């Protein structure tokens, strides 16, 4: 059991989401940085899709009511266990009564508290993610509040962890050849032209050539961008169609909206482009007020990036299992 001691609004229980129900109007939800959740779960010995706490408003504090294994992934900066600074992206043990504190990250937006055994909230439609809009899933279908107590599950690989912990080189560093770093503070985000791109004529080029800022009216549902508005040459009445996170729609005002993890399942605004899925975690870690630029991508490039990320995940899995097995053999 853990108890939430201090939380801001909008911190929620999330896993890898509940895709597969968009045809009945249910958003997939899930972590904004699924790579961080996956890596954290592998480190502590959980299934990749175990539920974690997504922290996007800081400071955040929780108390362990029993001994537990945990890792904090996603954000930069050091979490604190009582008064001790810890490595992020590393497993740690907490004793009953100890308090974990997450302070505002230096540059990123979201941290994940991953616990050995995962958060034991009910599975609804195949997932433990909080569906904020529908008001179900996660911890009672709502964000965490002070005093919430959540059970920790028991399902993990059962292998011992070294007292000093197992750490990984985080994805942004290990995969810096496939995830280009920001240039002068501008994050490059790769996208493929969408169905109505042609409708924007020369404003289509303005979309790719300018630097956009993530506006304050951005959340898990979508990011609104600020910049020089882009307008289609004709107004078309679109019929509602399915959408997925990463779709970049242009409402009449001309400032694009990127649908994120809590994306609506249907949309009707013209689509200028769609972000490749493997770049979405980087956007999930981009803060309000930060800048980005869209880079034209291709299916081939998206595939190459996905494969590199998959190799990294498998490498972390194999290596951590190897260490744990060796430890077990020595015991």
């Amino acid at each position: 059991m853990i108890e939430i001691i201090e939380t801001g609004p909008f911190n929620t229980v999330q896993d890898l989401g509940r895709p597969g129900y968009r045809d009945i109007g249910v958003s997939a939800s899930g972590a904004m940085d699924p790579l961080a959740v996956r890596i954290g779960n592998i480190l502590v010995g959980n299934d990749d899709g175990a539920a974690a706490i997504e922290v996007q408003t800081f400071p955040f504090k929780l108390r362990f009511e029993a001994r537990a294994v945990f890792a904090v992934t996603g954000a930069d900066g050091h979490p604190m266990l009582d008064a001790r600074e810890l490595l992020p992206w590393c497993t740690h043990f907490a004793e009953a009564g100890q308090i974990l504190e997450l302070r505002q990250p230096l540059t990123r937006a979201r941290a994940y508290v991953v616990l050995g055994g995962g958060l034991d909230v009910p599975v609804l439609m195949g997932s433990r993610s909080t569906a904020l809009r529908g008001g179900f899933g996660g911890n009672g279908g709502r964000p965490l509040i002070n005093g919430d107590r959540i059970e920790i599950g028991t399902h993990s690989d059962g292998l011992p962890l070294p007292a000093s912990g197992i750490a990984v080189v985080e994805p942004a560093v290990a995969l810096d050849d496939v995830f280009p770093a920001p240039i002068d503070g501008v994050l490059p985000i790769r996208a493929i032209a969408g169905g109505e791109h042609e409708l924007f004529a020369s404003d289509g080029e303005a979309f790719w050539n300018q630097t956009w800022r993530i506006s304050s009216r951005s959340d898990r549902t979508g990011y609104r961008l600020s910049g020089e508005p882009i307008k289609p040459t004709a107004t078309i009445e679109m019929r509602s169609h399915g959408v997925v996170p990463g779709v970049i729609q242009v409402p009449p005002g001309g400032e694009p909206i990127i649908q994120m993890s809590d994306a609506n399942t249907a949309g009707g605004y013209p689509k200028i482009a769609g972000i490749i899925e493997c770049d979405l975690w980087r956007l999930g870690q981009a803060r309000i007020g930060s800048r980005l630029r869209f880079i034209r991508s291709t299916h081939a490039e998206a595939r190459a990036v996905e494969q590199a990320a998959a190799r990294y995940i498998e490498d972390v899995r194999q290596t951590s299992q190897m260490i744990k097995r060796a430890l077990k053999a020595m015991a």
Partner: protein
Amino acid sequence: MIVTSNILAPLREIVPATKGRARVSFIGARAFLLEAPGDFDLPAQRRIWALSQTVRHWVDIAEVIPGMTNFLAILKETPEDPEIVVRRLVEAWNNAESIDLAGKTIEIPVHYGGEYAIDLPAICEFSGLSDREVVRIHHEATYRVFALGSAPGFGYLHGLDPRIYMPRKTVPSLRMEKGCVTIGGMQTGVAMLTGPNGWNSLGYAELQMFDPTSPTPALMAPGDTVRFVPARIEL
């Protein structure tokens, strides 16, 4: 007043959809949107249903989302050559025979007028009809669930009488109650969540239509027939 099916039969006559060219576009690398050519009508939607039944069984498909005369296919993996997927989808569309989903019939009791019918005066003004006529025309029709989306369990209903088509609001209501019976353009539906909503409300339904803990969370499914039954008319 309950409408008998023979009155509606002429409206439900099926004419073969013209086999125009469908359009396929990308949403990111793994999702492909096919849009049917032609009108927003039942024949086109019946082919979308057929396409959906075929494509959902492809081994490389993760998820399909039928929309309003369109269809989103989400692949398990990013394909090496997207043009092959485009060709397969267009071919499946061209081969899709119009099917009629059996569907069930759902009767939704509605309290027409009253405090939730905030847009009924605007609908009357736009249509030039009295409130009584608007309500009668709305509940006398038989509707088909074309697709679900937008909110958990929300069904887009087709079959609205053109006399009461009503454009979506340019400024949405900030807080429309869950249960409001609404008109959005040429569609009608029941609001599933309380919140911002651009459709026009003319009544209220108490029927629960979504339960996340049920093995079948949504009451409505594509192809279902829906009738609005006046439980009360308060004008």
